[in-house]
């Protein structure tokens, strides 16, 4: 079980985060990037899971610059307008400062990887393309908006996981990523969008999630320790 902390980015902004440490000596560190619902129950649960697998894990609250403390366990359409408003004001440049702020505490455990889901998957790709964040590997899940990051060449080992029935991420976009970056492990599962979120329920696919999660852990063991 983790704890809520605050971290401070290089521009002086202090944001919330959730941190969980393994029981024994950590294998490395993981920065875990949220979906668009903030550091909600499912994200905190994922942080705890990575800690149980041996990684000192930190999840920064990526929307704190837009709305301090935003998080929600409501996956219904009532939140869509709220999240739409947050995304209107969200800045990808300062987002990487917040990622770097989370790398700092995670790096106390050794090499640091990054993972994330949907919005967090896209941030994982962006972070992997940005040298100097102190990351050693990235494994992202169904990062939305592929055309927005396909031109960002990864600078660290990277793999991504997508569902072949993801109506928000067409297969042709995933195929375009594969063609552009043949050295990046692009894994596709028989699943819809958000297939790893067991709280979201509607698209949760245990088989796909188990397989993808096992791949991520193998990837991190290989590149982080």
């Amino acid at each position, binding site marked *: 079980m983790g704890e809520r902390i605050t971290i401070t980015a290089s521009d002086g902004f202090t944001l919330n985060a959730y941190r969980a440490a393994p029981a024994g000596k950590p294998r490395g560190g993981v920065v875990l990037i949220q979906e*668009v619902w903030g550091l909600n129950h499912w994200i905190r649960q994922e942080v705890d899971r990575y800690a149980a697998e041996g990684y000192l894990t930190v999840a920064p609250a990526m929307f704190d610059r837009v709305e301090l403390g935003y998080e929600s366990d409501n996956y219904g*359409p*009532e939140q*869509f*307008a709220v*999240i*739409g*408003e947050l*995304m*209107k004001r969200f800045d990808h440049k300062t987002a990487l400062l917040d990622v770097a702020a989370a790398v700092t505490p995670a790096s106390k455990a050794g090499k640091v990887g990054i993972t994330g889901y*949907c*919005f967090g998957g*896209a941030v994982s790709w962006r972070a992997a393309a940005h040298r100097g964040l102190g990351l050693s590997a990235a494994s992202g899940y169904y990062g*939305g*908006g592929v055309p*927005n990051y396909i031109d960002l060449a990864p600078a660290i080992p990277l793999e991504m996981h997508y569902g072949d029935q993801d*109506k*928000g991420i067409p297969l042709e976009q995933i195929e375009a990523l594969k063609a552009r970056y043949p050295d990046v492990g692009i894994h596709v599962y028989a699943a819809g*969008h958000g297939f790893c979120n067991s709280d979201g329920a*509607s698209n949760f696919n245990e088989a796909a999630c188990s397989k993808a999660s096992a791949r991520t852990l193998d990837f991190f063991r290989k590149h982080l320790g």
Partner: protein
Amino acid sequence: MLAAALIDAYVDRLFAADDTVDDILAYRESVAAAQPALGLVMALCAGRAGVGVAIEAVGVPLADYGALPVEDFMVSLYNDHSVQRLRLTLPDGGRLDMQDVLREALAGLDALQTRRGPRRVRPVR
């Protein structure tokens, strides 16, 4: 386009089943006058100048977000709050939602069949 082509072809089947008409062009004109959406579909399939299909980004006001399907919600978040829509383009530069046109065209086919009664399909001349 496949859906449009099938609808267009079905108009010909209705002509074939109607003993009271001999001129297919006149028949299609009368169908277009009675069912405007069918007329648009026929114009599209005939390649009439200025009638076409296009995929366009359509902005979604935040107030409408709650009505979006979750896939459109996601697409809009990563595409400057717009979603992709298939549109029928018109000679005057106007735009119609293609799904609406197809839906109305299908309703038009139903209306034509109801008016005619049970179908008797005769060999195509």
